[in-house]
């Protein structure tokens, strides 16, 4: 019997090649895309799960709170003492503790030297806690040597080629300090599904020296640069430890003269290791993480695409139901009961689904390289080694087979043989409503996707082109070196003498970066000095910073190089800081007393608010001050017409100013654009899926239109004989489908509107939802639908009526 079903299914396919092509290719397309998305989702969900202890590791992150309990800053890192203290205070609960400290050293081996940015110092227990596989060396002792370093296979290859790297000496320069390393181990490359990647792990010992010894390091609560991981006992709920953290903070951070408990000001917050990649988007992360929302969006899209494809299948099966009805009647008369018919139809759609799956897998293999390129990952379809994937595939076939087959199965099997066998049966009306619903659903999804894509790109465009309140064009940012900072004025003059360089300033941070540094502040309000209970981010700058970025001073003056006091007791604030402190106007702020960290002084100027960070963030209160330390970058404003020549000049200069390091720079503008990558990717994906959805929907509509026209061939013939013109007939045939698309538009617009409203809420700066995006989406869908339908209608309308009328 089963053989018989499959035989019929296959022969059906062969006998109706056009119909089967639409059906199978539509399904295959939908399944292929679904498989691709699910591969990606599976990959995203697999982050950090490869560690044997993945469910026992948590990361300790550090948050600060305002007076009103709101989080003002939440870093993924913590200060160096917290790890050892947790291990000490919660002995037995915290079984192991490992900290990572990232630097970008210049590494040298013989004649090879590179700047490495995936270099970490780590505590020696790292290989106990994490399951990175060591190929050579002893994981237990490798990092206990003060000069021990472990590198990945690719790095061993990069520096040592065919030589055996074990025991080789290695030189490194970290922020002006020369270090000696000895290779103590080689590990496999870190899997891609890790929330951070590294090429080198070195012993923590040199870091202890940076910090001035173990004792000093254990007192340093301000340097929150240590990614801190804890290993908890098996089956232990990390929340239980979290509950004890407030007391721990109060105990260890008790401050004199503060009546507020320490835990109300700053806390350690634990995160399970496996949650980091999708659930953690803190103010500092080792690497940018993804968001679970995107996983949801992608999964939903995968499902939608699959459903659209299934709908096509259902649609086209009902279109053929006249013919199938006879078969059903006959089979019943011969003795088939309803169950066996349902089984037959479901079986048929399973066969179709299976055939489509083979095509889909082929499609996936074809697209995968491009998709990998696009998302910068290395996804693989590996059915025979990855059971989740295999089960997923079977699941997809099952889902498609059931969903797509269910309507024909239950509907067709219900036919009464007495009515269908006499040949008076007409299938037209029965399905019409159902088919309409299907078409509406398909177009609703397509229109919503198109509209969403347009909104995403509009927002993206807006962010890229918005006036940020300063001049972001043509500002190159370069790293500084000891040589530059110690001799800054001379070097500045030397640079300014080049005709292509308009302005130069050093700073701790430049726009397009984050504002993560801050200290306690107090300000004179209503005649008395008040402690400020919110965070004012600081930027340490040189005198020309405000000019280099062309920021607007709305009150007071800029720092003056001729006034020595400006370097020790003057502050410039932004409007947002002035407003939150409570001064009535920028003018009001001028000359008011202001204390920041250890510096006491007065406000000398106020700059207009500007977007220092990406437009995801709203404008934070900022204070500018002139320091003699913490300078990381030099910003150079370049004349646009001489960009190339100037960059060449800078490269020459930097070869002597920062010897040994490769020349590297970035432009502020580009760095801003870079931060909108996720949005750009989302927009592109929406676009891709929208095109796909509309293709599948059009395919279905085409099939349906051809069926309806076929059914009405006689009617068309009669109308023509009675004098109807071609255009009247085309209009007649197209009206109904057009109406369906219109209904789809009416449903899609509010849905997409609402969804996009939610999405835009992610941004501190949003566009008003553009009406044109929805109009355009609607018109596109309508046009595509019309073209699809008219193809059939016109063909039918111009046909000679004699042909159709004679056949009876």
């Amino acid at each position: 019997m089963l053989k018989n079903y499959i035989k019929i299914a296959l022969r059906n396919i062969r006998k109706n090649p056009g119909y089967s092509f639409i059906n199978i290719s539509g399904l295959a397309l939908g399944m292929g895309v679904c498989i691709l998305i699910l591969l990606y989702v599976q990959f995203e969900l697999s982050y950090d799960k490869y560690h044997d202890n993945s469910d026992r590791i948590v990361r300790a992150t550090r948050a600060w709170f305002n007076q009103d309990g709101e989080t003002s800053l939440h870093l993924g890192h913590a200060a160096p003492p917290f790890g050892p203290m947790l291990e000490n205070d919660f002995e037995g609960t915290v079984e192991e503790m490992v900290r990572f400290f990232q630097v970008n050293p210049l590494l040298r081996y013989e004649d090879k030297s590179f700047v490495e940015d995936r270099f970490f110092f780590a505590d020696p227990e790292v290989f106990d806690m994490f399951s990175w596989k060591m190929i050579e060396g002893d994981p237990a002792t490798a990092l206990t040597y003060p000069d021990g370093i472990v590198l990945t296979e690719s790095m061993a290859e990069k520096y040592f080629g065919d030589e055996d790297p074990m025991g080789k000496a290695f030189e490194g320069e970290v922020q002006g300090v020369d270090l000696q390393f000895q290779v103590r181990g080689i590990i496999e490359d870190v899997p891609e599904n890790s929330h951070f990647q590294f090429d080198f792990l070195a012993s923590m010992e040199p870091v202890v020296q940076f910090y001035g010894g173990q004792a000093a390091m254990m007192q340093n609560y301000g340097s929150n640069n240590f990614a801190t991981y804890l290993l908890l006992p098996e089956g232990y709920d990390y929340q239980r430890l979290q509950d004890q953290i407030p007391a721990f903070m109060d105990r260890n951070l008790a401050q004199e003269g503060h009546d507020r408990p320490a835990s109300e000001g700053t806390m350690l917050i634990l995160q399970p290791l496996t949650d980091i990649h999708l659930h953690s988007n803190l103010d500092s992360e080792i690497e940018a993480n993804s968001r679970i929302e995107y996983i949801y969006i992608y999964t939903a899209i995968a499902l939608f695409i699959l459903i659209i494809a299934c709908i096509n299948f259902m649609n086209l099966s009902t279109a053929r139901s006249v013919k199938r009805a006879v078969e059903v009647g006959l089979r019943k008369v011969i003795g088939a009961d309803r169950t066996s018919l349902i089984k037959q139809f479901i079986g048929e759609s399973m066969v179709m689904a299976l055939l489509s799956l083979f095509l889909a897998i082929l499609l996936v293999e074809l697209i995968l390289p491009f998709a990998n390129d696009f998302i910068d990952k290395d996804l693989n379809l590996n059915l025979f080694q990855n059971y989740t994937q295999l089960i997923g595939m079977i699941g997809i076939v099952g889902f498609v087979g059931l969903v797509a087959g269910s309507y024909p199965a239950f509907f067709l099997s219900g036919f009464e043989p007495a009515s269908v066998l006499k040949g008076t049966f007409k299938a037209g009306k029965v399905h019409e409503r159902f088919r309409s619903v299907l078409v509406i659903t398909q177009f609703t999804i397509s229109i919503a996707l198109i509209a969403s894509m347009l909104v995403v790109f509009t927002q993206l465009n807006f962010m890229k082109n918005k006036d940020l309140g300063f001049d972001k064009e043509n500002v190159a940012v370069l790293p500084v070196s000891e040589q530059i900072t110690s001799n800054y004025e001379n070097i500045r003059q030397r640079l300014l003498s080049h005709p292509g360089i308009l302005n130069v300033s050093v700073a701790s941070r430049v726009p397009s970066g984050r504002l993560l540094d801050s200290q306690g502040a107090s300000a004179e309000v209503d005649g008395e000095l008040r402690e400020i209970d919110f965070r004012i981010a600081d930027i340490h700058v040189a005198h020309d910073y405000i000019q280099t970025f062309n920021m607007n001073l709305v009150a007071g003056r800029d720092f003056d190089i001729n006034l020595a006091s400006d370097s020790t007791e003057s502050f410039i604030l932004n409007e947002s800081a002035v407003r939150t402190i409570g001064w009535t106007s920028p003018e009001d702020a001028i000359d008011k007393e202001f204390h920041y960290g250890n510096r006491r002084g007065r406000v000398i100027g106020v700059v207009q608010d500007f977007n220092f960070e990406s437009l995801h963030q709203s404008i934070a209160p900022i204070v500018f001050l002139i320091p003699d330390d913490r300078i990381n970058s030099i910003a150079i404003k370049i004349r646009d017409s001489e960009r190339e020549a100037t960059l060449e000049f800078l490269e020459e200069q930097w070869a002597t100013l920062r010897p040994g390091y490769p020349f590297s720079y970035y432009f502020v503008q580009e760095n801003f654009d870079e931060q909108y990558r996720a949005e750009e990717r989302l927009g592109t994906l929406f676009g891709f899926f929208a095109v796909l959805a509309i293709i599948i929907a059009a395919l279905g509509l085409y099939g349906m239109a051809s069926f309806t026209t076929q059914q009405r061939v006689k009617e068309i013939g009669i109308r023509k004989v009675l004098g109807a013109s071609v255009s009247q007939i085309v209009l007649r045939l197209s009206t109904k489908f057009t109406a369906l698309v219109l209904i789809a538009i009416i449903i899609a617009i509010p849905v997409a509107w609402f969804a996009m409203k939610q999405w835009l809420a992610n941004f501190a700066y949003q566009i008003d939802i553009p009406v044109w995006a929805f109009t355009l989406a609607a018109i596109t869908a309508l046009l595509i639908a019309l073209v699809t339908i008219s193809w059939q209608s016109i063909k039918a309308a111009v046909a000679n009526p004699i042909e159709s009328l004679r056949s009876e």
Partner: protein
Amino acid sequence: MIQLRNIDKYIDKRFQRTFILKGIDLNIEEGEFVTIMGPSGAGKSTLMNILGFLDDPSEGEYKFLGEPVHNLSEKKKSEYHKSHIGFVFQAYHLLDELTVYENIEMPLLYRKVSGKQRKAMVADILDRFNIVAKKDLFPSQLSGGQQQVVGVARAIIGNPKLILADEPTGNLHSEQSEQIMEMFKKLNDEGVTIIQVTHSEKMAAYGNRIINLKDGALVKENPYEEAAES
């Protein structure tokens, strides 16, 4: 074998009741070859549908092999369809996707006959109907008469006791029709009960009893003669 007592079939439409069959009393014994005749709309097909369990009467009693039909479950009806009743249609209703062989074999699949036995049974029928050479052809490759031969072959492969044939020769020219009728005659001689609907006196003559229907009721006279008179 078949006993109809006072069978009515009507359609209620608003305040009007339209009778399709009214007060049908009919006994058909095993081994009869009955022809139902009557003008279009007389209720022949409805009567056939009721006889074949494809439709239920609105009123009255139908006993099949002594068992009241309205008491039969769907499953039991399916059982009877599988084992007792064979249908032959005016439009043949062969499945286009299946070969002659597979079309004939299909009822056996629903009866869960073993593969080996199926082969033997189909081979036997093909031989009997002289269509062995055509067994691998598809219905579209056959003439109407040949298709109906296959239709009859399919109807009798399950050794039914009753064959219901609704205008089996309606689409055929006379030579083909005679061939089909000869076939029925032969089957009838072998003991199969046959009920057919036809408009043709000539085809009716193959049977041994004619039932005339007019406006949903049984009439003694030949309705065609009356129609001709008026």
